[in-house]
């Protein structure tokens, strides 16, 4: 886990939250380095919002401590924490105009001359013209920016964002993602961002923690999580993965050789998160876009050293930049393959016999004891 000796880190140690008999967040240790853009990603109800609210002080942890730098803030009420929140659906005060909404925190801390600061902040979020409007007179995107300005003006040590873009339509959401990223770079404050949208988390965050059922499944940079998932949940929740059940065979150097559907697959030992005893079972994963598709007639042209699987095209859908194939194969009934539309092979139609092949370096290995479908339905949520 990343830790620096920076005094602005958010450190959660062993915090948990239970409501009566059930547990929303299992004891959790987490450190968010100062100045980073950190995302808590998960389906609705995975405990990510509860975790965020415990940092904000809106939820009292059942156990554990919350530290900001060296200060233990676990017992502090929200209004005494140097932390501000951008709420889901914004929670702008309907009876106050934009200016007063943004000035609210400053005024509560007894700061008299707020005009300059508020105006600067409204400039930063490009709302200088709207200062005297009431929240309901603004568009969704503008309301979202007021919510960000209202929190940021207090120069919190940490800015918490609870699904801040959830209420916006797709196009605006993409735009605001870049906008938030720009603001974060500009002000250099730690952002902790809760979202259920994996694309959003990967675009914006330096570090992503994937949460499931009240615990963190995996934590890391977006590319690490995507390229090297360590659980089936992460593999399925982030993008799409083909998971093939295989039996561990011999070991050659840094690679493990596996047996699946009568063929052999090679997996770099470093990319396997499960114990590998000979004869044991593993789930071998590969992303659909890493796979190349060759018609069975041309199988001889495939270079040596690549993982191969044979199959028959069950379905093909053309979606412009790529074509998505579903392959029926002895190792797995449904393998997804995304092929870039560079040179299209007219023989690759449903019913055609094909060979799937990919660079073994793109293979990852997971513990076969897990639910192979974990994280599949949640993605839609």
């Amino acid at each position, binding site marked *: 886990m990343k830790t620096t000796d920076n005094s602005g880190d958010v450190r959660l140690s062993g915090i948990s939250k239970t409501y009566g008999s059930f*547990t929303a967040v299992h004891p959790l240790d987490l450190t968010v380095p100062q100045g980073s853009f950190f995302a808590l990603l998960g389906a609705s109800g995975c405990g990510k919002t509860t975790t965020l609210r415990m940092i904000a002080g809106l939820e009292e942890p059942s156990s554990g401590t919350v530290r900001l730098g060296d200060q233990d803030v676990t017992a502090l009420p929200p209004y005494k924490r140097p932390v501000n929140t951008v709420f889901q659906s914004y929670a702008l005060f309907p009876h106050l105009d934009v200016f007063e909404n943004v000035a609210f925190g400053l005024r509560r801390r007894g700061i008299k001359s707020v005009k300059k600061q508020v105006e600067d902040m409204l400039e930063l979020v490009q709302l200088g013209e709207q200062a005297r409007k009431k929240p309901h007179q603004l568009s969704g995107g503008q309301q979202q920016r007021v919510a960000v300005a209202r929190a940021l003006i207090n120069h919190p040590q940490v800015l918490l964002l609870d699904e801040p873009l959830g209420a916006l339509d797709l196009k605006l959401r993409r735009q605001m993602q870049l906008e938030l990223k720009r603001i974060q770079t500009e002000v250099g404050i730690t952002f902790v961002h809760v979202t259920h949208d994996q694309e959003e988390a990967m675009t914006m965050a330096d570090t992503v923690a994937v949460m499931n059922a009240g615990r*963190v499944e995996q934590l890391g940079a977006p590319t690490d999580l995507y390229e090297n998932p360590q659980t089936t949940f992460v593999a399925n929740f982030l993008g799409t993965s083909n998971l093939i059940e295989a039996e561990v065979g011999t070991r050659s150097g840094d690679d493990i050789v596996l047996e699946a559907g009568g063929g052999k697959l090679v997996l770099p030992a470093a990319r396997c998160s499960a114990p590998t005893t000979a004869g044991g079972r593993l789930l071998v994963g590969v992303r659909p876009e890493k796979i190349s598709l060759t018609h069975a007639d041309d199988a001889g042209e495939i270079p040596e050293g690549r993982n191969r699987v044979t199959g028959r095209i069950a379905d093909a859908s053309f979606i412009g930049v790529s074509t998505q194939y579903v392959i029926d194969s002895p190792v797995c009934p449904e393998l997804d393959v995304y092929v870039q539309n560079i040179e299209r092979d007219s023989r690759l139609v449903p019913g055609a016999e094909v060979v799937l092949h990919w660079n073994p370096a793109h293979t990852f290995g997971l513990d076969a004891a897990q639910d192979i479908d974990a994280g599949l339905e949640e993605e839609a949520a």
Partner: protein
Amino acid sequence: MSTLTEAPPPPSPTVTDKKAPRRRGRFTPYWLLLPGMLWLIVFFALPMIYQASTSVQTGSLEEGYRVTWHFATYWHALADYWPQFLRSVAYAASATVLCLLLGYPLAYLIAFRAGRWRNLIMILVIAPFFTSFLIRTLAWKTILADGGPVVGALNTLHVLDVTSWLGWTAGDRVLATPLAVVCGLTYNFLPFMILPLYTSLERIDGRLHEAAGDLYAKPWTTFRKVTFPLSMPGVVSGTLLTFIPAAGDYVNAELLGSTDTRMIGNVIQTQFLRILDYPTAAALSFILMAAILLMVTVYIRRSGTEDLV
């Protein structure tokens, strides 16, 4: 980094929200409730008990009253005043039905057809409240006056012949007849029917009408199958808000009626304030309360709506 175990579905946000603000004391709600609840207990609930006790007392004003469990008071009260009870129920029921018939079109008009006049009409429905209802009820004496234009018109159209035959009016008079009392009751409680009706009609999505039309429903069918069922909550609370006060009213019977139109409210008022027969008055009041609570409970059960007012 984190421990494992399967978590059940998470609490919905509302559950967590209700817990806040958690730092305030566990007893805060009780402190907030205390003064108001004490007020209602002492000045609403306790009087009911006193009244129940008074109804089974015997004695006289001079010598004082004692609880003797004299339930005969109830039998005497019922035996003496059952016509007034029946009359109250009949008048209140007629007024309620009339309120529904008159109020529904107006509520419908405000909800769906008024357009930019909606606010103005709403104001006109509410504004009469600001003139004391007694003054407005007295105005009906002028409107229904003997030989006045209204009575004259009804006479010319031979409406009065029919109503006299039914026993609702007497000869050429409307004033001091059941019709006048029901007319006054209807007038007085009409806004209490219109407002809940409007509230529930306003919630209906106008597109439902279009959808019904699209699905081959004629306007009247649309009303019967879509609009009216959806406005049921308003109908239920409107009828209750009209029936209950109308059944206990004695102002209209006193001002617009005669000795033949006395309702149970008149009897209770006279017993309490003029004859000073407290046990009988308390018994009558208790019977009225029990009867109305019973009717209301049955009615609510039947109509299947629990959220009122």
